[in-house]
C-alpha cells in the first residue's frame, strides 16, 4: 500500500532520514526489542483473536454442510467444499439485498458527500458568519446512534403521528417504492456533519498564502473553491467515500428498526439482515458463507476505490 510511504512525508525533516535507517538496522540487532513487543502485543493479540480468527473460523464454517441420517437422524457437520458458496450465489434474496444496498450507495454516497463538501466550502468561505454555531449544529446528528435516528425519523415519516402530517398523509414515505430513500435520508442526516467536518478540517490545513496569489489574479471565491480548494481536499473526500462505501454495504440498524414502522422492509432487506435472518433459521453455515462473501466484497470495493483514486491522482 503506497499510503505507507506517503504518510511518512509530513513528518518533515527527520535527521538521519528514515530511508537509511532500515538497511542499517536490519543487519544489526533490533534495538528496544522488549519495548516494541510490549507496545505491539496487546493490540496484536486482540486483533488476532477478534479479527483474524473469526474470519478464519467463518471460512472454515462456510465449508461445512449439515447432513442427516434420514429425516429424523441427528445432524452431522461434514466437509462440503464450496457447496455453501454455490448456495449463496444461487440465493436470490441475498443478491436482491446486495443490489438494494448498491443502488442505495450509488445515489446516497455522492449526494451525502456533495452536500458535505458544499457545506464545508461555505464554512471555509468568508461569506458565512457564525461558523462555530453552524459547525456544531450540523454535527449534532452524528451524536445520535443509527437506531435512535431511525426511531425518530420513523415517527417523522408516520402518516398520523408526524408533525408534518400535511405531507406524510399524502406521500407514504414508508411505502415499498419510497422506503429505501427514506432510509437514505436517515443515513444522510446522521453522517453529513461528520463528513463535512473531515473535509472542513482538511480545508483549514491549506496555508493561506496559496489563496493570496489567486486573489491578486482576481479569482473569485467560486474559482478559488473549484480550482484550488477542491483539488487539495481530494484525499479527505476519498477517505470519507471509503468509509461511506463500507457503511453502506454494512447497513443494518436503520432498516431493522424500520421493520416496526412498516411492512415494506423485509427480513433480508440488506445483506447483513440476510445474514442475521439466515443465522436465526438456523443455517449457520450458509450465514457464515454470506458473511465471508460480504466481508470480501467490502474489502475489494473499498480497496479498488482507494487504488483507483490514487492512480488518478498520480496520473
Amino acid at each position: 500500500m503506497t499510503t505507507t510511504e506517503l504518510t511518512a512525508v509530513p513528518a518533515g525533516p527527520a535527521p538521519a532520514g528514515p530511508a537509511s535507517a532500515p538497511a542499517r538496522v536490519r543487519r544489526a540487532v533490533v534495538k528496544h526489542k522488549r519495548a516494541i513487543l510490549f507496545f505491539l502485543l496487546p493490540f496484536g493479540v486482540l486483533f488476532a483473536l477478534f479479527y483474524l480468527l473469526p474470519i478464519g473460523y467463518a471460512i472454515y464454517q462456510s465449508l461445512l454442510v449439515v447432513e442427516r441420517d434420514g429425516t429424523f437422524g441427528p445432524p452431522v457437520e461434514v466437509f462440503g467444499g464450496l457447496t455453501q458458496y454455490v448456495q449463496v450465489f444461487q440465493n436470490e434474496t441475498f443478491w436482491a439485498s446486495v443490489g438494494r444496498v448498491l443502488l442505495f450507495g450509488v445515489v446516497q454516497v455522492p449526494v451525502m458527500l456533495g452536500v458535505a463538501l458544499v457545506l464545508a466550502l461555505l464554512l471555509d468561505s468568508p461569506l458565512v458568519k457564525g461558523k462555530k454555531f453552524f459547525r456544531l449544529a450540523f454535527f449534532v446528528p452524528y451524536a445520535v446512534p443509527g437506531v435512535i435516528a431511525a426511531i425518530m425519523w420513523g415517527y417523522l415519516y408516520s402518516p398520523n403521528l408526524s408533525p408534518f402530517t400535511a405531507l406524510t398523509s399524502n406521500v407514504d414515505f414508508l411505502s415499498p417504492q419510497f422506503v429505501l430513500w427514506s432510509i437514505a435520508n436517515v443515513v444522510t442526516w446522521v453522517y453529513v456533519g461528520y463528513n463535512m467536518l473531515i473535509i472542513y478540517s482538511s480545508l483549514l490545513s491549506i496555508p493561506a498564502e496559496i489563496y493570496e496569489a489567486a486573489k491578486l489574479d482576481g479569482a473569485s471565491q467560486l474559482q478559488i473553491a473549484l480550482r484550488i480548494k477542491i483539488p487539495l481536499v481530494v484525499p479527505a473526500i476519498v477517505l470519507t467515500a471509503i468509509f461511506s462505501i463500507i457503511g453502506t454495504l454494512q447497513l443494518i440498524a436503520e432498516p431493522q428498526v424500520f421493520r416496526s414502522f412498516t411492512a415494506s422492509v423485509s427480513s433480508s432487506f440488506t445483506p447483513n439482515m440476510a445474514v442475521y435472518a439466515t443465522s436465526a433459521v438456523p443455517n449457520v453455515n450458509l450465514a457464515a458463507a454470506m458473511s465471508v462473501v460480504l466481508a470480501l466484497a467490502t474489502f475489494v470495493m473499498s480497496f479498488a476505490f482507494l487504488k483507483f483514486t490514487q492512480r488518478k491522482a498520480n496520473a
Partner: protein
Amino acid sequence: MSAVTSTPAAEATAASGAAAPASTPSSPRRGRAPRERVMSRTAAMIVMLVSTVYFLLPVWWLFTSATKSREDFGSSNGLVFADFDLVTNLGNLFTYNDGIYLRWMLNSVLYAGAGALVGTLISAMCGYALAKYVFPGREVVFNVVLGGVLVPATALALPLFLIFSQVGATNTFWSVFLPSLVNPFGVYLARIYATASVPDELLEAARLDGASEVRTFFTVARKLMTPALVTIFLFQFVAIWNNFFLPLIMLRDESLFPVTLGLYTWNSQVNQIPEIRTYVIVGAFVSIIPLIIAFLSLQRFWQSGLGNGSLK
C-alpha cells in the same frame, strides 16, 4: 490563472480588504461588486440556515415529544410543547420494568467508556511503535492493520458469534466488550500522528536521561499525542455506543443490553404494549444527551485531531 482576470463574471467576493484594490482595476466591476457580494452572502446564509433547520428540527421534535403525555403525543402539534410532563415521563422511564433503562444506560457507558479507553491505549501503543521503531515486519504489520480498516466490524459480527459460541461465551458482557476494543483505524491515526508530532530528537534526549522506552511513551509521547488520542477515544466511543449488530446477535439477556438494543426491542413492542411508546421517545432523548455533552466539552481536541486522518 491568467484567464481569471478577464472574466467579467468574477464576483470579486474576495473578503480581505487588502487584496481588493489590486484585484479590481476596472471601474464597472467596482460598482457591481458590493451588490453581488451581498447576494452571494445572502445565498450562502440561506443555505446554512435551511441546513440548520434540517439537522436540528428532528432533535427539537424529540425534545418536545419527550415532554408530552401519551395522549398529547398523539394529538398535539409535534413541534410545540403541550403540557410539560418531562419529569413524570422520566420517573416512569426510570422505574419501568425494575429500572431496566438505567441498567441499559450503565451498560452502554461501560461498553463504550471502558472499551474506548482501553482501545485507545492499545491503538496508541501499537501506532506509536509502528511510527517510532524500526523492526523487521513493520510494514507487514501495518498493512494487515490497514486491511482491517477495510473490513468493518459489522461484517465480523456473525463470525464472532460463532467463535464465542465455540467457547460457550455468547450472551456475556465480554462477548460484546472484548471485540469492541479492536480499532484498526485508531492504530492508523496514532501512527500518522506519532510520526508527525513526536520528534526523534526528543526520544533520544529522554534515552540519554536514562528513561525507559515505556516510560518515555507514557510521559513524553502521550502528551504530544493528546489531540490524536482524544479523537481516537471519542470516535471509538461513538462506534461502540452506536454498535447494534454485535449485541443484537450476541445477547439474549435483557440486563446485558446496551441502550440502543434496549430501545430497539421496546420499539418493536409498541404495537403490543402501547404505553411503551412514551418510554421509547423519552429514552431516546435521554440516551443522546451524554454523547452531545461529550462532543461539546471535548471539541477543541477532536476538531484539531480530525483532519489528520486524511494526511497523505
